[in-house]
């Protein structure tokens, strides 16, 4: 079942944990995995237009790569920005590899909707949530990824700029356009009780 929960809970990852990961400590790595798995998986799902199978693969690749690459992490940047740069690159690589992104509706029919109990349908909030996911999936990646980094990961504009290797102004501009496109695509929900 999908759950919505507080993002950016207390981060237990400190220099000690990262150093242990660099030394190859499996338990420390599992701690790191437990801390970031939901956020990384969420980005992968949204980036893959809701295809959970693809998101599963991408998430695995990210953490496997992280396990190797963390030995090269020197602490020159924040760990989170370094991690999310890996995530963004993996999602973009996956997109390039597949060369096509399935429309959200096709995926939803086989993945997310099958997990819902029938009575859940009656709640406006769920429907809005689903409409938002669909609208997000229709955004171009350059507008979609900043929105995911902002709302799933809770990164600041500056952190998003570092992750996406662009200026803070570009982040602001892309978020503006992303928000604007979301508003247009979801205009039919303007009078919804949940908005």
């Amino acid at each position, binding site marked *: 079942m999908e*759950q919505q929960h507080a993002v950016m809970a207390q981060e237990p990852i400190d220099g000690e944990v990262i150093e242990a990961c660099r030394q190859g400590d499996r338990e420390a790595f*599992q701690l790191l995995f437990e801390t970031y798995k939901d956020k990384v998986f969420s980005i992968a799902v949204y980036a893959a237009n809701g295809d959970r199978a693809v998101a599963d693969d991408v998430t695995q690749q990210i953490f496997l790569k992280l396990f190797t690459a963390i030995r090269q992490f020197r602490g020159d940047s924040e760990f989170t920005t370094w991690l999310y740069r890996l995530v963004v690159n993996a999602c973009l690589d996956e997109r390039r590899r597949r060369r096509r992104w399935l429309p959200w509706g096709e995926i939803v029919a086989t993945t997310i909707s099958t997990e819902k109990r029938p009575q859940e349908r009656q709640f406006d909030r769920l429907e809005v*949530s689903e409409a938002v996911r669909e609208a997000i999936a229709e955004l171009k990646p350059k507008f979609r990824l900043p929105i995911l980094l902002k709302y799933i990961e809770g990164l600041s504009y500056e952190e998003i700029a570092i992750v996406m290797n662009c200026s803070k102004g570009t982040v602001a501009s892309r978020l503006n356009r992303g928000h604007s496109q979301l508003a247009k695509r979801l205009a039919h929900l303007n009078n919804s009780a949940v908005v």
Partner: protein
Amino acid sequence: MFSKHVTNDISAYCQGELSPEQARQFAEHIISCAKCRREFEEIKFGVRFAEQLPCLVAPETLWTEIEAGLGSAGENSTVNRQWQFRVAAVAAVLLVVGGLGVWWFWGKGFKGQLAAGSWQVQSLNGAPQIGKKKFGAQGRLGVGEWLETDASSRAQIAVGSIGRVNIDENTRVRLVETEPTEHRLELARGKLSATIWAPPRLFFVDTPSAVAADLGCAYTLEVDDHGAGVLRVTAGWVALELKDRESMVPRGAACETRPGVGPGTPFFEDAQPSFRRALETFDFEDDAAARASALNSMLVEARSRDTLTLWHLLARVEGDDRVRVYDKIAGFVPPPDGVTREGVLQLDQEMLDRWKDALEVSWFADNPVLPKAVAETYWRVKNGLTRRVREISDK
């Protein structure tokens, strides 16, 4: 007035990414620029949707698959009890947080409510009631709850950290929502007085015939038993809106609303009674001849300060009537450079806004209390705008 358009900064403003000075300039610009306000509304709408994007839960099997992928790469690692304990602790915390998330998510779904949070309410007189319960000195008004006063009770609501609203006798209001990007009350009947020191368009009051959008101000709003209302602004500006109809009401001015029509045309309260009667006829009468006669009367009686009313009428009349209104306004204050007669008559919004900026001088020059610049500076300090933007930027 900060004249450069601020559309590129709208998301950054909504998310507290601007410096206090930038946020102040943004807020000032939004008050006066209809173009940026429209985009601000749209992007704010998008922000509110994006905020509902849920964080998903990774499959339980993921770690097993990753661990298999790791193979023997980490077999020589030191497994110490401290890490095992910390993994278990993190897993437990995530489980609890996830559980609370589910509880919150479904709890809200059942109640049909969006926002957590409530406002503190203080009784000013008698025993107001929240829902069906009367309260003594203090109570809390939750989202979706009604606050009601009778003939002998009054109350004051603390609107989060952005202002206060006094509720007069025989009034019924509901807290619709309280979110970082929007606080909204519904006034079903009665009278409230709001003093808001937040950036523009953070506080709204829904009435049966219009929505009052705060633009950094103080005002009173009354709604009668038939849903008709009147807004009186004592400081700053308030926008009274319904669908595409918008009336910008500055301090010293008022605006009436009617069910089925929406906001009428704003007028300064020191306008001649005959001018006000004519305006009421024009705004709310169905009879075309009566409306035409009322327009004629207004064009004869209008003072320089009544260009507030005439400027709004430009978009509410057509053909020759619009030309006559244009000529009347231009007789008081000619359009500034770059604003053409043709552009205004075609309702070019940018030209209309620029002319309004020029007209504002005459709207407030007659004010015997304070010169506009002094009054605005006074209000800016008083309403704590700077304090509010600092709060946002500190988040």
